[in-house]
């Protein structure tokens, strides 16, 4: 099942009317452990507003006077709501209860995948499709209005910011990246004029990474057709990958090593380029 089809469990820590407040340390530890486990947690008190809940499962935890909070205190339109009195439960038992509820409601298990994917700044994006053309892993696509978007988030290679470096407008962010502007920090004139954003990729193998890889592929084919030596083919690929790694220091080695063979790269690059060109052609049609 795709991650976009999974439902999630919302935990509500109820400390309003009809309940006893948790001790400060217990409250912090409960919140902290649930968040570390990937849950969304709402603390409800008599003071302040929280987001409404309209569907999906919700587990309400609290030290309730009557086993559950007064009926008028918890909004539950179409939601499946369960209550759990935690007066007698220690931290481990609370977490266990939440995990059990998650399991029973079929809600998503968190933490299996580090959420690393491109976030597009549409204030900057010009819909040029360079990212779509560049990405070998089909992360990008276009919507019904032919607008570029990140569509297959979990295809993205963890910790790899390569596509953000080919964007001519510095419009691609990875919020968990270490430095700006890729992390979402402001884009400065220096970022744009100095080509800092693109330097790593443009330096890769002396220019257009794909043509360089294609050239290498042709050379390799000629050589390998003579030698028929698989070990040498592997060495060649590793040499190529090593050069990539040296030029783009922040592209993880695992990503470089997981790249397809030069032939496959050439094929995927052609496919991506064709998708981008088709999208651009549709865009021109729409613009009349």
């Amino acid at each position: 099942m795709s991650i976009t089809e999974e439902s999630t469990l919302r935990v509500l820590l109820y400390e309003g009317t009809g309940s006893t407040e948790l001790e400060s340390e217990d409250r912090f530890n409960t919140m902290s452990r649930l968040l570390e486990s990937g849950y969304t947690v709402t603390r409800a008190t008599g003071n302040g507003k929280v987001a409404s809940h309209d569907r999906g499962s919700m587990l309400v935890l609290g030290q309730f006077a009557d086993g559950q909070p007064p009926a008028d205190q918890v909004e539950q339109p179409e939601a499946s709501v369960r209550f759990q009195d935690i007066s007698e439960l220690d931290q481990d038992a609370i977490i266990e209860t939440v995990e059990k509820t998650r399991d029973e409601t079929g809600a998503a298990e968190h933490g299996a995948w580090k959420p690393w994917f491109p976030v597009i700044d549409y204030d900057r994006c010009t819909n040029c499709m360079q990212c779509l053309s560049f990405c070998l892993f089909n992360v990008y696509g276009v919507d019904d209005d032919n607008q570029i978007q990140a569509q297959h988030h979990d295809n993205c290679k963890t910790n790899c910011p390569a596509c953000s470096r080919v964007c001519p407008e510095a419009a691609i962010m990875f919020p968990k990246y270490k430095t700006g502007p890729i992390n979402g920090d402001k884009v400065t004139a220096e970022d744009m004029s100095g080509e800092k954003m693109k330097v790593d990729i443009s330096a890769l193998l002396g220019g257009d990474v794909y043509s360089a890889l294609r050239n290498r592929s042709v050379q390799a084919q000629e050589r390998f057709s003579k030698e028929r030596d698989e070990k040498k083919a592997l060495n060649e690929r590793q040499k190529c990958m090593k050069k990539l790694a040296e030029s783009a220091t922040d592209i993880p080695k695992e990503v470089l090593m997981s790249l397809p063979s030069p032939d496959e790269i050439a094929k995927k690059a052609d496919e991506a380029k064709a998708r981008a060109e088709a999208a651009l052609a549709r865009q021109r049609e729409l613009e009349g």
Partner: protein
Amino acid sequence: MPRILYCHCAYAQVVPPDTKEEVLRQLCDSGVAFDAVADLCEMAARKDPALKRYAEGDVKIAACYPRAVKWIFGGVGCKLNNETTEVLNMRTEQAEYIMDTLLTDDISPNLPDDNDARKPTEEELPTAN
């Protein structure tokens, strides 16, 4: 008072742990109701419909860079309101400043708007000699 949304950025080490722990601890001790999410990025990747509800109305968000937060929401069709949203950046601000700002009734909207996208900053503007 605006709603408060706290992002724990659980799947990366980019927010200083001391800052997010202190913000969460003080929120828990404040007596104020709030929403906390493990990771806004993960919710966006899931296209979690809850993001739409978090984006509604007056809201202060303790997370990371405003530009990133704007498009984490916006990228999945849950547009934050430029006039009623304030983002506090736990990557760069101290916990004390974040808490002082979160717990006031006033809201200082700070999402970048599209007019800011290519506008040079004060430092970038040429100076007259």
